[in-house]
């Protein structure tokens, strides 16, 4: 594979995955020596990784591995928690986020989807129009277009188009999760972070969302934290394995699942021997 792509005779279908891996696609996010502490408790330490543009970067690992803390540090949510301290460097598009003065602009470029769907206590329409309104768009026609586009892309439009004025927080769990994805898309994010999005979602909806993500990666970079290793296998181009606050393994997803690992614990976890 490597030789083939380097010689330029690779088949068309390999373009997405192989060329990105070999030709070092643009780096969206560079993390160096990241350590996160809550008071005196260390959540993660010594994490070095990079996330490339337009890839789905999977993060797997058991509970308490530091996956969620890792995501929180990426959009400086630690600013809101005086207990949480972040050391090390995180570069987003080449800028160290510690030096970002307009942290609101940084956050609005990063969409986040939580494990439990959070439909804001606003109407379906206003949930999706929230960020556009913050950006000063108040024209109804313009908002209509944005809301329809985002809901359509999140595979929710058909189900809610007749009740845009009902409360978003009263939709079903699976619908709310797609609503939060639509809301994240309304930010037109460059990076979309999903934290175990399928925990409260039925399998059918999960599959629909997974299809959505596969489409979205052509336009944005996606970090997918999941505790379903098979989900990582289905979606992620590359996958990192977090364990007890360490990033134990990073590699092409297929390699990880085919046993090409540096650390035996990765295979043990993937095959369900612990965790």
């Amino acid at each position, binding site marked *: 594979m490597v030789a083939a792509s380097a010689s330029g005779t690779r088949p068309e279908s390999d373009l997405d995955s192989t060329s990105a891996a070999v030709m070092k696609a643009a780096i969206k996010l560079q993390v160096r020596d990241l350590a996160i502490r809550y008071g005196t408790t260390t959540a993660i330490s010594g994490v070095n990784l990079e996330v490339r543009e337009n890839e789905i970067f999977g993060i797997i690992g058991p509970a308490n591995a530091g996956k969620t803390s890792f995501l929180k540090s990426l*959009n400086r*949510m630690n600013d*809101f928690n*005086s207990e949480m301290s972040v050391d090390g460097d995180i570069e987003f598009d080449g800028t160290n986020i510690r030096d970002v003065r307009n942290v*609101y*602009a*940084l*956050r*609005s*470029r*990063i*969409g*986040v989807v*939580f494990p*439990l769907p*959070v*439909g*804001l*206590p*606003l109407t379906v329409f206003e949930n999706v129009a*929230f*960020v556009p*309104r*913050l950006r000063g768009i108040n024209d109804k026609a313009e908002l209509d277009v944005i809301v329809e586009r985002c809901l359509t892309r999140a595979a929710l439009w058909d189900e809610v188009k007749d009740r845009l004025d009902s*409360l978003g*927080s*009263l939709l079903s769990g699976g619908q709310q999760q797609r609503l*939060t994805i639509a*809301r*994240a898309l309304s*930010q037109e994010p460059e990076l979309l972070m999903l934290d175990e999005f399928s925990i409260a979602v039925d399998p059918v909806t999960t599959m629909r969302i997974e299809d959505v993500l596969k489409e979205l990666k052509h336009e944005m970079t996606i970090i997918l934290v999941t505790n379903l290793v098979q989900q990582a296998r289905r979606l992620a181009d590359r996958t990192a394995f977090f364990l007890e606050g360490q990033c134990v393994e990073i590699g092409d997803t297929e390699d990880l699942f085919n046993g090409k690992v540096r650390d035996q614990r990765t295979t043990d976890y993937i095959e369900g021997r612990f965790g």
Partner: protein
Amino acid sequence: MSNTSTIDNQFLETELNVKAKRTETLFRILFMIMAGLLILPVLIILTTLVVKGGAMISWEFLFSNPTNGMTEGGIFPALLGTVWLVGVALVISVPVGVAAAVYLSEYAADNWFTRVINLAIINLAGVPSIVHALFGVGAFVLFFGFGTSILAASMTLAVMTMPVVIVATRESLQAVPHAFREACWNMGATRWQTIRRVILPNSVSGILTGVILEVSRTTGETAPIMFTGAAFFIPVLPQSVFDQTMALSLHLFVVSTQVPHVPEGLPYGVALVLISMVLLMNSASIALRMHLRGKKKW
């Protein structure tokens, strides 16, 4: 077969079970009686007032001046004065109290400064009303030079009621789940944008409920206003916040203890009007809360 019988035996009542059940019944009934006793004072007060003062109530009683050394006529100046005092107190205490509560709930980090503020609120709530009255005289009547006036009395009431407004507001703000805030912050909203668009709209009814309950408490206060702005008897209605005024609570005190030859029904009539105002506002607060529960958004 033998298996079945052992299972049956497990459900036979032992001596211990019977005793436990009896004690259980005893305590349930005891506690229920204690809870039931609470209704008594309310019933007695209301019945007494209606029986003895109900005959006094008329349009004339509500809307005319007291005459003949306050032994006859109506209570209009006192009624209007109470509305003035409570209204102005609200205009002062609600904005300040709500703003302070928003700061404490949404902005303040947990540091010594916040702890000092919280301590101040608790202590302010514990200051006896007569001490508030003396503070009001010193601060508003004399130092700020408002004289004995509606403004001075209302500011005294406002200071006194502030802790309750703050606590009620803070509680309704914190009843809005934290996940909503995090969701907004993650989308790049500032704290204020989050508060204005999501937190306040979903707690405003709760805040109102607290405020109304607060008003009803203010209505009956006597000590804080008697040295700061409420007068024994004034034949003219107040024209501005710098005038003195009569007030229902003080009027009740006056006709009950200070004026000779008052007909027996008069104080009861005044008390009935006062308590009706309070109950009316409490009912409004309860209605609002029920309305709010019906529209629960999450």
